[in-house]
């Protein structure tokens, strides 16, 4: 496992895009950890000016670099605090997605036959499930919390990972080293997890990157649609507050920063994912 992580960094470090992405990702992770500590104001406290008047929709100033919201809250503080849910939900979802997807792909591809057709039929069904609407229905029925969000997103996202992994396993299954392991009497489970699984780790890592990108955008979209955890300030919920207040077009400083933050973070994830894919996927090597 450590070698694969080392290989990962070595692979991504080549070329201009990979390192750029890694640096941005590193900054975002730092922000997710330190955000609440370095936020200049309480993100949900109302701010007043010297005369004691509520600072409604104040444009950017030295006191409030990114201005304030309709309720006089500091946008910069909300931005700094909002990094954590984005990365937390994104990261956990990506992890869950890959755990389920990789295992289903491994089992389906290795055993083939009925198990394979059952699991692939299941995957097809999940592929037909409308992504965002499904998550919203689940959230509205079971309550709005980050945990439910992660579970609901994982439920619909494992499907593509499973397909990619299965395809890879189908070809690995025919390799001589698998036959050799079988001759020495290794059990099916041992072959799957000791012989085949290490070989699909690179593909799984690519899949983590793309799942992460999708999960971050989806978390924001859910927040924007108003189905996010009401007790959490996230980049999506900032846009939702602006949208719901009907003031968004009068206060660009309120709406523009969260979108840019999401765009930069997700681009960074794509850059890292593509740089790694370039090295891992032989078909892309020339391009």
């Amino acid at each position, binding site marked *: 496992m450590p070698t694969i992580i080392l290989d990962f960094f070595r692979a991504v470090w080549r070329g201009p895009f990979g390192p750029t992405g890694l640096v941005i990702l590193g900054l975002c992770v730092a922000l997710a950890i330190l955000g609440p500590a370095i936020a200049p104001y309480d993100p949900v406290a109302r701010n007043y000016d010297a005369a004691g008047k509520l600072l409604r929709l104040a444009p950017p100033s030295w006191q409030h670099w990114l201005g304030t919201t309709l309720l006089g809250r500091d946008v910069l503080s909300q931005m700094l605090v909002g990094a954590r849910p984005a990365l937390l939900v994104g990261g956990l979802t990506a992890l869950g997605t890959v755990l389920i997807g990789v295992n289903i792909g491994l089992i389906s591809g290795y055993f083939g036959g009925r198990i394979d057709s059952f699991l692939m039929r299941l995957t097809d*069904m999940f592929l037909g499930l*409308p992504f965002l609407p499904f998550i919203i229905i689940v959230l509205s*029925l079971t309550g709005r919390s980050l945990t439910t969000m992660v579970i609901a997103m994982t439920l619909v996202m494992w499907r*593509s990972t499973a397909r990619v992994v299965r395809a890879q396993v189908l070809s690995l299954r025919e390799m001589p080293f698998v036959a050799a392991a079988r001759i020495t009497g290794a059990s099916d489970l041992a072959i799957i997890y000791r012989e085949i699984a290490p070989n699909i780790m690179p593909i799984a890592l690519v899949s983590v990157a793309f799942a992460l990108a999708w999960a971050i955008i989806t978390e924001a979209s859910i927040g924007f649609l108003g189905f996010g955890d009401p007790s959490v300030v996230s980049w999506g919920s900032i846009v939702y507050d602006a949208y719901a207040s009907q003031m*968004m077009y009068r206060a660009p400083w309120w709406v523009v920063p969260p979108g840019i933050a999401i*765009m930069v973070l*997700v681009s960074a994830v*794509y850059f890292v994912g593509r740089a790694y894919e370039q090295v891992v996927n032989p078909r892309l090597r020339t391009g």
Partner: protein
Amino acid sequence: MAGYLLRRFWHMVLTLFAMATLMFFLFRLLPGDPTATVISPSLYPKAQEAMRQQFGLDRPLFEQYLIYLRNLCVLDFGISFQTNRPVFEMIQGRLLNTILLILPSMLAAYLLGAGIGAIAAWKRGSAAEVSLVFTATALQSAPLFWLGMLAILLFSIKLDLFPIGHIVTPGMFPEQDWRMYLSADFLHHLALPFLVNTLYQLCFPLLLMRSTMLSTIGEDYIELARMKGLSERRVLFGHAARNALLPLATTLPMILGWAVAGSVVIETVFSWPGLGLLMIDAISRADYPVAQAAFLLIAVLTVFGTFIADLLYGLLDPRIVYA
């Protein structure tokens, strides 16, 4: 070919059946009174009792499930809590609105994306190509709702070129009828969400087309095409692009699914009265029969899109034989 079509169609029906089942149990897993999602709690107790019998909610769960399936087959989605009208009446117009917004935009996105991606591969290494790839990645990474809001801010509010939302000017067509779709007013309202969605959705096919074309450049048949004395343009567009279209086509079902699902977002931003907005509104008003029906219809669109895209793939790749 007919056999394949039939089998593929059967899979589609199975998938939809499984999804309807999932929805049935999901809506009854709710904590509290399981019938609260079917019968409006705001009705008089007597009326509630009457409906309970009408929908068979006093029967065992399995029987309820059979009744639910039968009702779905005859397109009876129940009564809206909000309007007390049959749900079916409320959603039929919405379906068309969503299709009109998403389908032309997705077709435009794929055609444009493939074309621009091919040109990018042709001009590989140039400064224009590098910045195009960078821009496409950034656009693809931006949240769609945010792009929509920026577009409204810029084109509707600052430049006053397009209306801020809705499908037609409110009050212009009091009865929603087909003449609405032929009006210039409708097209004027459609333009901005169409442009935003197309711009956002074309990034994926663009980047994929480019990278697939670049990866075919080392193939023997590309070299032979070059040796034949074909111009670089013919080699790339006649050979490399033709081959890159295949992997592009395989992604169409997935992307179509995402786009239909994404209609929730774009319809909300532009107040577009489609299925997605209907579902969001219904959920926030606890109008569960409408929410469920809207969801099922979105699912039908997604699954049907996948079906069509699969058939399309067969047309493009001569190696595929329908057996």
